[in-house]
């Protein structure tokens, strides 16, 4: 101690109190939990109902007022939402007609098909040509195989309904995100004003959006689409802001030197220069849209999501799995296509090659259209022949029952062991924590990591669930999510470290995590429910699988990015491989790893809500059942509570990572 005090070196001293703080916090927390129940006043053990703020009721009555009596004078809010709904329905109906239903006149059973939807063979030809145009032969083959799979396994119509929704929402989301992003770059105040909304929109579970949409736009595809667009738009806004800011300043100076107007600078210089980065955003929008469109089948989007949902509800694993695989196929096709598109935006091609490619693609498209016209004349050839269809559903069903019969005791033993040894104790612990202490602790950590502003923000967010009477559900959420994050972080960091130095292994890992991340959240549940039935354990596995990817990715990135001179310096001082890892790589990669864990937390929260389908008792269940009862207030409040958990974690972890980075100075 005396040596440390004598030394002027700051780091040695600044670390010490930090340890004291954390140790103290842990000790006090443990002590409080161990106190007998009577030792604490009743209001601390259970938040008194009398102190609750009836937020949910307020929101519910506000929406009711909004929809029933609010008026802008000339027209009511209901008229307005009807008009918007009608407007949004136009592109959506068009896309659905083109891809899935055909153009029909009349209603119900009197409906006459005026013009058929694109038949499956035209679609395969067109998609293959499009795949060839943007991604070459490999993508073309992939597109053909994927679409044929959908046809052969009888998923065609559902898949096309989903595709139509995804396409329309992606277009709207990308364009909307681009425009908002550009406006944010131009007017700083707008960016500042939009930032909290972007945060909430991304951390709030999708279920929570569905409800207000349902109220505003009614049950049906339009509601689903609006929810999808709102969810998919924030990443595009962010990507746009980053991408446009990253355009070298010189480009803008050039624009002004050549006398461009602002509009010309934006559309002729900034946007085209930023295009490759913007396409990455478009890719994200497409994938998020698919994910939400699947979830939104609950409020009438239909398509593959609906198939999975009904199968899950009736525990028809075979059918669910088939639809799930179809979603996976669609997701991979869309992802690869969007990625190829993003790559192409930055690629360069010789003129004659481009011309040949164009000729090939346009003739393929012409053939596809010709076939389509042909089906209008001879409707009989349009549907995929029943006789050529395959279904694996019965086999899957048999397979699952075989597994369950053969391995029942093993699976059950695993499940029980984890439940009894990990899940239940942690859950008890979390529920035993008095709410005032948790709020205080969160505030103190906020102060420690980022000063009073952060303390105030996270403290208020932590108090919110108590205030609205959702404390127990919130703690269950924290418990399930926390356990999942710890497991995902342990697995992810280990895999990341192992894979970082081995390029061949890393490629395999990357393919696996890429696939895991492209899958819509719904799909995870199917095989796990198959093995472990419903409950917390199933939810846990699903969350870990979904949330592990960023932990792996960031760890691998952080560990392999360290300057080679530092490693060489370590080798020269005689470090063993292990010492290089523990003394150099890991400490240096910690900020990066923290950011990865931050992402893992956010993903875990978003997955948590989906797991409400398998009967968890947390905030996800709260939003889900509110949705079923169309109780807007309850759903939104629970959604906000989930968003706040995510934002608290995000703020604290980011502050920790930033503090660490700041102390180390800019990266070498």
């Amino acid at each position, binding site marked *: 101690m005396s040596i440390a005090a004598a030394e002027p070196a700051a780091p040695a001293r600044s670390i010490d109190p930090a340890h004291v703080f954390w140790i103290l916090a842990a000790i006090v927390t443990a002590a409080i939990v161990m106190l007998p129940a009577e030792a604490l006043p009743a209001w601390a053990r259970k938040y008194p109902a009398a102190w609750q703020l009836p937020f949910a009721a307020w929101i519910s009555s506000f929406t009711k007022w909004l929809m029933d009596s609010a008026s802008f004078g000339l027209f009511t809010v209901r008229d307005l939402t009807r008009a918007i709904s009608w407007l949004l329905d136009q592109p959506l109906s068009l896309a659905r007609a083109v891809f899935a239903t055909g153009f029909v006149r009349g209603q119900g059973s009197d409906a006459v098909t005026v013009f058929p939807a694109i038949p499956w063979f035209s679609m395969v030809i067109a998609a293959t040509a499009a795949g060839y145009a943007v991604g070459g032969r490999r993508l073309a083959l992939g597109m053909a195989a994927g679409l044929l799979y959908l046809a052969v396994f009888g998923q065609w119509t559902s898949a096309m309904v989903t595709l139509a929704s995804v396409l329309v929402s992606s277009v709207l989301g990308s364009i909307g995100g681009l425009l908002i992003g550009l406006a944010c770059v131009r007017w700083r105040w707008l960016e500042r004003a939009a930032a909290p909304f972007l945060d909430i929109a991304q951390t709030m579970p999708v279920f929570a959006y569905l409800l207000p949409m349902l109220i505003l736009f009614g049950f049906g595809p339009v509601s689903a689409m609006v929810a999808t667009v709102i969810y998919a738009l924030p990443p595009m806004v962010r990507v746009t802001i980053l991408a446009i800011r990253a355009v070298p300043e010189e480009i803008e100076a050039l624009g002004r030197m050549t006398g461009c107007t602002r509009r*010309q600078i934006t559309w002729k210089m900034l946007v085209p220069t930023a295009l490759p980065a913007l396409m990455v955003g478009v890719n994200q929008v497409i994938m998020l849209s698919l994910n939400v469109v699947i979830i939104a089948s609950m409020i009438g989007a239909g398509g593959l999501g609906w198939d999975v949902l009904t199968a899950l509800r009736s525990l028809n694993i075979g059918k669910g799995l088939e639809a799930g695989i179809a979603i996976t196929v669609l997701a991979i096709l869309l992802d690869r296509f969007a990625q190829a598109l993003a790559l192409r935006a930055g690629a360069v091609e010789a003129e004659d090659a481009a011309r040949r490619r164009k000729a090939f693609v346009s003739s393929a498209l012409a053939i596809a259209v010709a076939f389509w016209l042909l089906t209008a004349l001879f409707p009989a050839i349009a549907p995929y022949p029943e006789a050529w269809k395959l279904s694996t559903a019965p086999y899957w069903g048999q397979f699952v029952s075989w597994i369950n019969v053969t391995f029942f005791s093993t699976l059950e033993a695993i499940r029980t062991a984890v439940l009894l040894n990990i899940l239940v104790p942690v859950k008890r612990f979390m529920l035993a924590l008095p709410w005032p202490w948790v709020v205080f602790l969160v505030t103190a950590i906020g102060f420690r990591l980022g000063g009073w502003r952060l303390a105030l923000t996270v403290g208020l967010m932590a108090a919110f669930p108590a205030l609205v009477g959702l404390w127990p559900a919130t703690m269950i959420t924290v418990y399930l999510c926390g356990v999942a994050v710890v497991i995902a972080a342990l697995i992810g960091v280990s895999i990341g470290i192992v894979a970082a130095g081995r390029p061949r292994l890393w490629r395999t890992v990357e393919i696996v995590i890429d696939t895991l991340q492209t899958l819509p959240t719904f799909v995870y549940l199917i095989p796990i429910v198959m093995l472990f039935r419903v409950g917390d354990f199933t939810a846990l596995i699903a969350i870990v699988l979904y949330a592990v990817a960023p932990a792996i990715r960031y760890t691998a990135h952080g560990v392999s990015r360290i300057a080679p001179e530092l490693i060489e310096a370590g080798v020269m001082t005689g470090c063993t491989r292990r010492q290089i890892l523990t003394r150099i790589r890991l400490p240096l990669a910690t900020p990066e790893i923290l950011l990865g864990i931050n992402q893992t937390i956010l993903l875990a929260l978003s997955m948590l809500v989906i797991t409400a389908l398998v009967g968890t008792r947390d905030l996800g269940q709260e939003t889900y059942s509110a949705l079923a009862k169309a109780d807007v207030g309850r759903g939104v409040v629970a959604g906000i509570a989930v968003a706040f958990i995510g934002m608290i974690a995000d703020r604290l972890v980011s502050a920790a990572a930033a503090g660490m980075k700041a102390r180390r100075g800019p990266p070498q």
Partner: protein
Amino acid sequence: MSGPVLACRGVAKLYGSGLARFVKNGRLSADPERLAADGVTAAVRDVDLEIFRGETFVIMGLSGSGKSTLVRCLSGLIEPTAGEVLFEGRDLSKISERELIQIRRLQMGMVFQNFALLPHLTVLGNVAFPLGIQGRPKAERDKRAREMIALVGLGGREGRFPRELSGGQQQRVGIARSLAVGPDVWFLDEPFSALDPLIRREMQDEVLRLQGMLKKTIVFITHDFDEAVRLADRVAIMKDGRIEQIGTAEELVLAPATDYVRSFTREAPRAKILTARSVMRPADGEDFAGHVPAGARIAAFAHDVEASQKPFAVVEDDKVIGAIDRLAMIDVLVGRELKAAR
């Protein structure tokens, strides 16, 4: 026209907040200590200069000395916090935005350090870009762009995209683009700093060649004194936002105004900078081995003078104004302080 094309009067550019309190009657009224104490960066301050038609004016200084900021004030891209910038005698800040756009479109061209090529356009598209902005018909702008591309020696590469070119080639595209509109004033902001030394020399030759043909007014920014010496008619040396000295390279070498300027010029290639006039001594009616013009650079005749026992006459307007001998040559070449200059 005889007046300067561009002139600065007390130009200052500050970055920070609440800048108005440092400006009185359009002039900067705060010393560096006060600015620093208030967390304000004076990127440029107290700059007075005049640039004349057809001259190559080089602004030189280390990174962060305010060169880019100054050139952006000169081209009207940013407005100075204090002082005025006159273009052909008119205050840029008093010219309407519309007219300023016209001036920049038609009378100014700029080359950027990192090329600022648009990645989605071909070489032809990039060079034709400013013409497209002016709304010229496609046939005309393509023709003009092709001429410019040929002028910088990239003929045949019109269909390439920027990333398919080397750094030097990319900057040639940047040069062609800036010249496409036929500007009167040509700004080059460290155009060759991102290039390898060999390519850099080649590009300097290119600028000299183009200037020989086109006779533009050039404002050239560099952090390299050798580059300044090769290109400049006059050099301004900047430090911490101020101009330390303006003069020909020879004046800077012979009479550095500050220690900072001296430290820059100490290692300079004197033989290529100094003229016969500045190293001659008075002639005292002796025998001459030959004669050299007063304005000739020493490197051009050093060999002859050294080889001869007798001194050479320095002549101007057919009159002998001085003499130059072997010893003076050796002094210059080994970099000894010059008696003549003292």
